[in-house]
Structures are given as structure tokens and as C-alpha cells.
């Protein structure tokens, strides 16, 4: 952490996006997390993704629960809406907010404790309901805020800083999200912004529940030799299924790939994700194959990263509930209180 605010000066040739904003306009307060925390890199990736997508910060709502991860919304997008909820309850608060105003972009930020332990049920239901959101879990495998006990995502056999091994099986949130029907599922690593930033951009543009499990080493308690969520371990065992280029609707396609190497994924707003396949012939639209692939590589001790699964044009909670086009918070008294005649009509229909 740092006591001083970040100096206001910026690079004299700093790039501006279509809104005339620089990436520094997407910053929040100075982080109070430990120096080197992976979560700060995720914050930075979110800022860069929003900057590159030309998103106006005030059209974004960032929601979180409790924990190191859930502190981070304070440290990015200072001009966005925010709600720091109760432990594990971010998904239901987000669902409620989304029901009320579907026009905002919802960014749920959670951790492995917040989502895989106390909020496991909340996580499951928000995903299965198809809430249109980006759900990022900053996953470090320990409870950093309470001095580094194993969390539910810690791998069996991984050790604590002082050597105690984890006897329990881990929860794989990516696998859970696939089972629960998430229409966009990815895993990434805080130390690889080249992969993480395009994933966040694609997740923001995806309409439906987009889940990103982001391994984020805890430098204070879980970045040692016995850890499976350390910088070195993740770098050594990273098995990326694809590399992404996120291409917005406007940008021309400039790079060329050999045929068969590339898979195009259309998003509902007209933008495109281009996936450059790495290694195995991996189909990003095949949920069952994805689950198999994950299990196989998990047994081999490899960490699968990249865009694991995406459904084109999945629809979301509002489509399922057939809500009106106008966001509910914009409905006036006339719409909400149609009067005695309307009530009589409804009553008559039930007789």
C-alpha cells in the first residue's frame, strides 16, 4: 500500500479514447492492498478494458462483497456507481440492481472466500438466472484478510507458508460456472494482462452471465514454493487454450492468421472476438468438451486459461422474465399504478 496519492501529472503524450478520456480518468482511490497484490493488476486490467471500450464510467455499476478482492472497486473507476455489500451477498444485490435498471453495465467483483465459501449459493443462483453481468473472482486460494488460511479453491496438497498441506478437495469455480449455465466462462491470471484485458472487454460486451476466474497471487501469504497459486507456479503450469484479440465494431481487422488457426466469436453489439487457437483443436462453443478438457488438464496439474466457453446470443434474465423494454426504475406512476379499472380487469380475468 501507499500513503501518497498518485501524482496528478500524466505522460505528456498520453492516449485518449473516443470520449476524450485517458486511462488515468478511469482510476479510483489509491490502493491500500499489499504492495504487489495481484488484485491491483486486475483493477488495472479493468481500467484499461473500460478505457479501451470507450465506456463512460458513470454507466458502470461495480458491486462487491467482503474481502481483499471486494475492496478493489474503490481503487478503480472512481466515477462509477458502487455498492460494497455484505459478505457473499454481492450476487443478489447485483441481481436486484440489474432488475431495476438493466441499462447499466454490471461488474461484480468477488473473491474465492466471498464466492466459493460464504456466497457459494448466491454465486450459483446469479449464474443460473442468467443475470447480464461480468462476474470476476480474484482467486488467490487463501483468506488474505485473515492472515492466509486456505480457502475453498486451494488445491489439495498445496501448502501454507509454514508448510501445512491442504487435505480437502478444491472447488473449481470455472467448472461450477459451466455446470450452472454461464454463457461466457474464462480463466485468466493477474500477471498476464495481455490475456486478461481482452477477456474483460469481451465479457463486458457479452450479454448474459460472463464469469472470469482470475488467479491472483497473494504476495503476503500464498506466493511461496508450496503454493499452486503463486506467480511462478501459474507461469510454469499455464495452459492457455487460446489467445484473444477483442475487436470492436469500428476497428478494422488488421492481423492475419493462417486458416484453421482462428475462430471468430460474434458478440451481440456487433463486435468480434478473434480467438487464436493454441495447441489442441479446442472448440469454444462446446460446453461438454470444455468440461472434459478442464478435467483432463486438471488431473495433469495444468491450469487451463483463456476463453473456455462462450455461447453466441444467449439472452439474459430480462429476456426470460419478459420484462418491459424500459428499465423498471424509469417507469412512472402512470405505468406502475394503472388504476381501479385495470385492477377490475385483472380480477375479472381471474374469476
Amino acid at each position, binding site marked *: 500500500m*501507499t500513503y501518497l496519492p498518485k*501524482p496528478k501529472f500524466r505522460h505528456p503524450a498520453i492516449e485518449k479514447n473516443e470520449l476524450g478520456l485517458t486511462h488515468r480518468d478511469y482510476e479510483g482511490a489509491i490502493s491500500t492492498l499489499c504492495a504487489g497484490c495481484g488484485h491491483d*493488476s486486475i483493477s488495472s486490467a479493468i481500467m484499461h478494458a473500460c478505457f479501451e471500450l470507450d465506456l463512460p464510467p458513470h454507466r458502470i455499476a461495480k458491486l462487491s462483497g467482503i474481502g481483499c478482492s471486494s475492496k478493489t472497486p474503490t481503487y478503480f473507476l472512481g466515477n462509477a456507481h458502487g455498492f460494497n455489500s455484505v459478505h457473499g451477498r454481492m450476487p443478489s444485490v447485483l441481481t436486484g440492481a440489474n432488475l431495476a435498471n438493466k441499462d447499466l453495465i454490471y461488474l461484480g467483483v468477488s473473491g474465492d472466500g466471498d464466492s466459493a465459501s460464504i456466497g457459494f449459493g448466491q454465486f450459483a443462483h446469479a449464474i443460473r438466472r442468467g443475470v447480464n453481468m461480468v462476474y470476476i473472482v480474484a482467486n488467490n486460494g487463501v483468506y488474505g484478510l485473515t492472515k492466509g488460511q486456505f480457502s475453498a479453491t486451494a488445491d489439495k496438497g498445496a501448502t501454507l507458508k509454514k508448510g501445512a498441506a491442504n487435505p480437502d478437495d478444491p472447488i473449481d469455480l470455472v467448472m461450477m460456472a459451466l455446470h450452472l449455465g454461464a454463457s461466457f466462462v474464462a480463466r485468466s491470471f493477474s*500477471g498476464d494482462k495481455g490475456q486478461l484485458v481482452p477477456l474483460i472487454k469481451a465479457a463486458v460486451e457479452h450479454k448474459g452471465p460472463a464469469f472470469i476466474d482470475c488467479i491472483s497471487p497473494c504476495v503476503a501469504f500464498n506466493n511461496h514454493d508450496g503454493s499452486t497459486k503463486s*506467480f511462478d507456479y501459474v*507461469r510454469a503450469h499455464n495452459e492457455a487454450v487460446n489467445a484473444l484479440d477483442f475487436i470492436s465494431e469500428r476497428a478494422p481487422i488488421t492481423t492475419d492468421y493462417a486458416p484453421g488457426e482462428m475462430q471468430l466469436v460474434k458478440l451481440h453489439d456487433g463486435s468480434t472476438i478473434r480467438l487464436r487457437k493454441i495447441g489442441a483443436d479446442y472448440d469454444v462453443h462446446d460446453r461438454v468438451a470444455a468440461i472434459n478438457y478442464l478435467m483432463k488438464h486438471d488431473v495433469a496439474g495444468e491450469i487451463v486459461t483463456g476463453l473456455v466457453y462462450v455461447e453466441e446470443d444467449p439472452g439474459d434474465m430480462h429476456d426470460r422474465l419478459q420484462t418491459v423494454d424500459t428499465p423498471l426504475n424509469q417507469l412512472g406512476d402512470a405505468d406502475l399504478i394503472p388504476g381501479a379499472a385495470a385492477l377490475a380487469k385483472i380480477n375479472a380475468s381471474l374469476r
Partner: protein
Amino acid sequence: MRSDKVAPADYFHKVVDCQWACPAHTPVPEYIRLIAAGRYGDAYMINWDSNVFPGILGRTCDRPCEPACRRGRVEDEPVAICRLKRVAADFKENVKERMPPKAARKNGKRVACIGAGPASLTVARDLAPLGYDVVVFDSEPKAGGMMRTQIPKFRLPESVIDEEVDYVLDLGVTFRSGTRIDSLRQVMGEGYDAIFVGSGAPRGRDLDVPGRAEAAAQIHIGIDWLANVAFGHVKKVSKRVIVLGGGNTAMDCCRSARRLGGEDVKVVVRSGFEEMKASPWEKEDAMHEGIPILNFMVPKEVKHVDGRLTGMVFEKVRAEYDARGRRNLVPTGEPDTLIECDEVLVAVGQENAFPWIERDIGVEFDKSGMPIVDPVTYQSTAPNVFFGGDAAFGPKNIIWAVAHGHGAAFSIDALCQGRDVAARPAADGVFVSQKMGIHEWTYDNDISLQRRLKVPLRDNAVALTDIRVEVELGFDTRRALSEAQRCLNCDVDTIFAAKLCIECDACVDICPMDCITFTKDGAEGELRTRLTAPAVNLTQDLYVSDPLKTRRVMVKDEDVCLHCGLCAERCPTGAWDMQKFSVQLPRAGTTCQSRA
């Protein structure tokens, strides 16, 4: 590429832009921190060690440091380095006791310095404490040279010159005042081990136009006239005065004329306003005193009636540049302009004059009449005769004369001690970590957003009535603190240890100026294009690390680094550290051997 490994001292010295640009390499950030801490005497002594005349230079320096200042690239305006130097001189406690003691034992070597200007005094300052018997000759009654004769007192009070000249002379230097040297052969015959010529550029260039000779009584050479003003021989001037020339001497002439009764004073310059040699702030000061500067006008004729000056005729020109970028002034064809006046001051340049150096004593001159002098050793073709200041390479500024003096003193010491004069030890340096605690540094790393402060001036109504009243009031201590905090502490370097780095990106994320990138190594030109922010300023180096675990390298563009230390505060492993780099440059008394 790994640039800092080639010549580490030069690499990190160059990061301190101001110090690198200063001919005398004054450790600017170091003394500015001391000013901020209220340690004015310490700040003064650091200056004195490097540039010998902090009080004088704090008022008159040409400030090569300021255009180089990193703050000017981050914001609009550089730190007011020069005027902070004056603060150190103005508010210091008595520093007399801190001056080096007279040499306890003479070393038996005798050195003659001809001329008592800044170059000679620097040679004397460097050599006298080492035991040299230094004799300084000057035709004037007091030492100081052009600092005393040519710089008007309203810019540089006499008391400041007296004080700083005395610090040098009190080191046991013999000063032969009122002694004009008419023959170098004679001095060479007096058995000195070395002779330093610091006689300046004493002759003002004249004007060659019709009518010049006829109206001679009202036309004066600028530097001679300034000297006459300085010594009180000239006490007033006519009401309408034309000053010819666009350099700092012209600015001193016009402002002096304004104080001696000149009501309608104009500066007329051949070149355009931007190309004038005068420092921008000197032009500003002149205009502030109601003196117009007329450009692109070439003197054509002096008008006179019965030997009395009535005015001058100028031809209007414009600048044209040929294919090789050389400027030609071509007439615009407009009618000539007559400017009526009663007196003309000619400040169109200075020339060196060495009528007193015989041409058959081993000191060779080039075609233009300048001595042949080695630009590193300051040695002439006569092995024991050295030149410095304006006498060596033509008119420059005081700070250059000081730099020449240091260099010549080193050579003289080498010569007298039987070492190779040409062997210069490489610059060396010391790194000291500035870390005191988790977020505590020995320096103030909070970046001030304060804009550059102006030095308050005395009101024109008072300033223009007395030529001895100093115009600039200087910063008070409160303003000095505020200005000092604008300094970015560029001598506190970001030092990176590749073997400690875990590549967590924390430094990249926190850097407010997007200076840091982790990427594949490459050739510099190509590397510059693929950094977080493209490194387009080619005068600023890239700091490239050894390969990291991922085979990438850390690249930091030095250009606009604020030295805020946030990279080091965010680094979980201490791979980044803020370390103060103190460059150690060779001086008379240091030898190659002792630094090996």
C-alpha cells in the same frame, strides 16, 4: 540492450538533467533539498564547491540547467533553479568558517593567473588550498573581472561580488591589483610553473557605417560604457538612446541607460526577436522597464549635424534560410527608417584581443586570432600556458568560465605533479538507498503541483531612479520552499534489481507517467516503439534490465519519470529501490591512481 552498464556514472549523471547540463555540474537537486530543509548554508557550500560564485550566479547565470529541467517536460516551466541558488546565498548563515583553510604547507609550485575574472579565480580557488602559490594579476583595482565591470549593479550588487571574490582571495592567493600585463614573454620569464590566461574578451566590436567617425563623441562601445558606469565615470546619459545589438550586453546597456536619464531608450537588433542572443528573461526584464525591442533592422548610416549625432538610419530586412539552413538577412524593399537619438551604445559583440602575447613564444594562434587551446585540458601549444573563460573560446557565460577554471586547474596540478595532463579520470559515483521505512524516504516524494513562482521585482518607480538599487528582490523563504518543492529529485534514481523481480506488474500499474514496461528485449530503436507509452524523446535514455524469469526485460523510459518512488513503494520484493546518486567528478587534487 543494457545502457546503464556501459558507463554507469555517466548514465545516472545524465538522468539528473540539470546537473548534466550545468557546465560546472552543480548538484542541483541536492542543494534544492537543503534549501527546502532551511539549511541555506549547506546549500551554499554545495554550490560554492561546484561553481565558486553562488551569489553572483544566482543573479546572473545563463542557466543552461533550466531548459534541461525535467519539470519543463512534465509541466510547462522548469524549476527556478537559478533564483533558488540566490536564496541559498541570501539566507545562509556565516560560512566564512566553513571555507577551506589556507594550505598549511606550500608545495613549492608557482602559478600565475592573468586577469581576475571568474576563470582565474576558479583556478586559484582549486589550487591554493593544495599548496600552490597562486598569483592573480589584473589591471583593475579590485578582482572580479567582467562580473564587476560589465554587469550592472542593479542586477548584481557590489557587496555580493566583494564577498565571493574575497572567499577566494582569502585562501592565500596573492592578488596583484592595478597590474596590467603587457608581455606574456615577460611573465614566462619569471619562472612560474604554470600560467593561466583568463583575460576575457575585452574588446567590444565596433560599427562600420557612414557617419560613425564624425559623430564619435556620442557613440560608445557597450562594454566600455558599462565599465565606465560601473566605476562611476559615466553618471548620466542623454534622453534619447539607441542600443544596437541583441545580446545580454545590449540588455544591460539599455537598462543602465534607462536609469541614467534615458527616457526614450530603444534596442535595435538585426535579427528577429526569437534569434536574439539575450536570455529570454533578460529581454523580458528590459521590456518590463518600458524599453521597446525593434527587430530586423540593420544599421545603415549615422546622421549628424556639425559633428553632433542626430539619429540613425536602418534598413528593414527579413530572414531567409538557404538549403543548408543558414540565415541570410535580405532587404524587404521597404523605405529605410530614421530613428532620432542623442546617443548610441554599440553592443554588437565582443572580440578577443591578445596584443600582449608575443607570437614567437610558443603560444600559437589560429587564423581568426584565437589561441589554439585543447578543449579538455585547456592547454595551449606552450605546455605550461593554459587558457580559460572568454579568452579561450570567445565570449560565453560565467558558469562556463568556472567550468574551464576547474578543468585548467586539474591540468595545472597534473603538470606540476609530473602526471599526464591529458589523462582524465572517468566520472565515478556513489549510490545510497533513500529508504527509511515502509513508506518513508529521506526525500519528499510527494509531487507538488505548484506552478513556477515569479521572483518579485522592485517597483519601476524606485528601480529606475537609482542604478545601484537591485531590481530583483529574490524569493523569500516561504516562496523558496514552495519553489524548491517543485524539484523532482532526479538524482534519486529508480534502481532495478532483476533477480528480485517476480513480475507482478505492480510498478507498471502504479507508475503515473507510464514509464515502465515488461516486454521482450530488442534493439533500442524498435524497443522504443512498443512501450506502455512510446519513448519518443531520443535524448533520454532507456533503462533496460537483465532478462527476467519469463525471459522478458524491464524497460523504463527515463524521459518523464517523476522520481516519485511509487514503483519502489509498490514493489513487494524490493526489486525497485530509490537510491541517491552522487556523481564524483575529477578535480585538481584527485588523481587517477587514488580512484582506481
